[in-house]
Structures are given as C-alpha cells and as structure tokens.
C-alpha cells in the first residue's frame, strides 16, 4: 500500500516519517517532492572523481556521464519503505535519477545520494525540485536497515569493492 499525500503529512507530524526541512507545498497525491543538494561528484576526463559545488547560476550536465548528487532534505522512515524516483517534469527533459536502484530500505534516514544521468545537456540549479519520494507500508516483520549508504548524508561513491 502506498501512502497518500495527506498520510505523508500526518506521518511527518507524528514522527513516523522524517522530512527536514518539510514544506507542505511539496506534497503530491502519492509522494513528496525533494530538492537537489549543493554538491555533485563525477569522474572527470582523467578518470578522477571531482566534487563541485553547484553555483547559483546553475551547472550544465553533459550526456554520457554519471553524476552523484544528494537530496537537500534529510529523508527517511523507520516505519515505511521508500522509493526515490525522478519527476515526470524533469524526465521529459531527459534528466534521469536512480535509474536502476530506487528502493529506500526501511530504517534509512539521511540525505540520499542521487544517481543522475542526462540524455541531453541540461542546466541544473542548487535546491531545484528534482525528484519525488513515495512511502510504502511493509508486509511482514521489519528488520531496519543500519548499514551501507544510509550512514552518509552527502553524495557518496560506490563501495562495491567492499562487497567482494
């Protein structure tokens, strides 16, 4: 079962969902619109990770490159599972988020790393609304997620090698 916007608002008020800062105007019928944080990480042409601060006048993303950003908000829940997806409004501009990994495990509460890919050159701005998060009721006993990337609150590169 997916939560409605009014249920998301109620859950924020009672603490079952964390959204900081929370603006009621960003609530949708089944999700909450989150904003892009200030930092971006990407591999430059030399193959070295670079971190930049997105300036007020915006920053142009190049196609064929993966950028890591983060949500400006701290988002999460110990009660509900989450999906972090893009918005149709940005998808229509060829800006894609969390293309293959959009599941947020129950228990994760942090600023989420966003995997960003642009199909065309596009200018992005700090704190622009870039995606939406939905909340889902769990079926079964919940073993909250403590590990992995949920300990990080800024764009965080893959730690895949630690899994091997």
């Amino acid at each position, binding site marked *: *079962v997916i939560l409605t916007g009014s249920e998301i608002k109620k859950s924020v008020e009672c603490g079952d969902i964390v959204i900081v800062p929370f603006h009621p105007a960003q609530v*949708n*019928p089944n999700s909450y619109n989150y904003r892009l944080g200030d930092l971006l990480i990407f591999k430059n042409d030399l193959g070295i990770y670079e971190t930049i601060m997105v300036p007020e006048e*915006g920053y*142009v993303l190049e*196609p064929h490159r993966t950028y890591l950003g983060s949500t400006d908000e701290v988002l999460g829940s110990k009660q509900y599972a989450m999906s972090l997806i893009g*918005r*149709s*409004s*940005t998808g*229509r*501009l*060829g800006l894609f988020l969390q293309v293959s990994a959009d599941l947020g495990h129950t228990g994760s509460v942090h600023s989420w790393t966003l995997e960003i890919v642009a*199909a*065309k*050159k*596009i*200018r*992005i*701005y700090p704190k*622009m*609304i870039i995606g939406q998060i939905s909340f889902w009721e769990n079926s079964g006993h919940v073993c909250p997620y403590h590990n992995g990337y949920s300990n990080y609150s800024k764009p965080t590169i893959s730690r895949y090698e630690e899994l091997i």
Partner: protein
Amino acid sequence: MILTGNKIKQEVLSGKIIIDTFLESHLTTNSYDLTLGDNLVAYDDDILDPQKKPKTHTIVIPDEGYVLQRGDFLLGSSKEGIFYWVAVKNILAVNSTYQ
C-alpha cells in the same frame, strides 16, 4: 496491490478505467499494452534549462517508420487515452513545473 488483466477488463466494462481505444487482445497478465502515437517531439536547444520554456519541433512518424539515432532524446505518447475515474482529479492537480 496491482490489478490483473481480468480485473482491468472488468473495470473498463464498468467504466472505472477508460482506455480509448480498448482492444481485448492488448490485455496482459497485469497490464495493458499501449501503442505509440503518431507524433514525436524533439528539443531544439543545445542546452536545456528547466527555468526556460524549451524550443521544440514535432516529427510525424511516417508509415514506413522513423529511425531513432543513438543519443536521440524524443518524447512520444500513447495513442490511447487512459483514465481512472478516481485518479483524474489527482492527475490534473499534479504540477508540472518543468514541462
């Protein structure tokens, strides 16, 4: 919860779901197959800017087909109109700031 194909058909017959044009052969186990509409929209701007209205042009897909080039980004649409009566007002309420 997700609707089965049979349930989708029932809801179409009862008018709760509107699929225009509805063809029973397009029903699948948990979905309905959509067909591609005739028009594509392409962006003309070199750099898209969500704060500005983009320039676009429309491509009419000819009967013999249209070849997508690697790296193209185009918008198409379903030929069918789809509505779920309780959802219509919600869909209309969703803001689409960057469209």
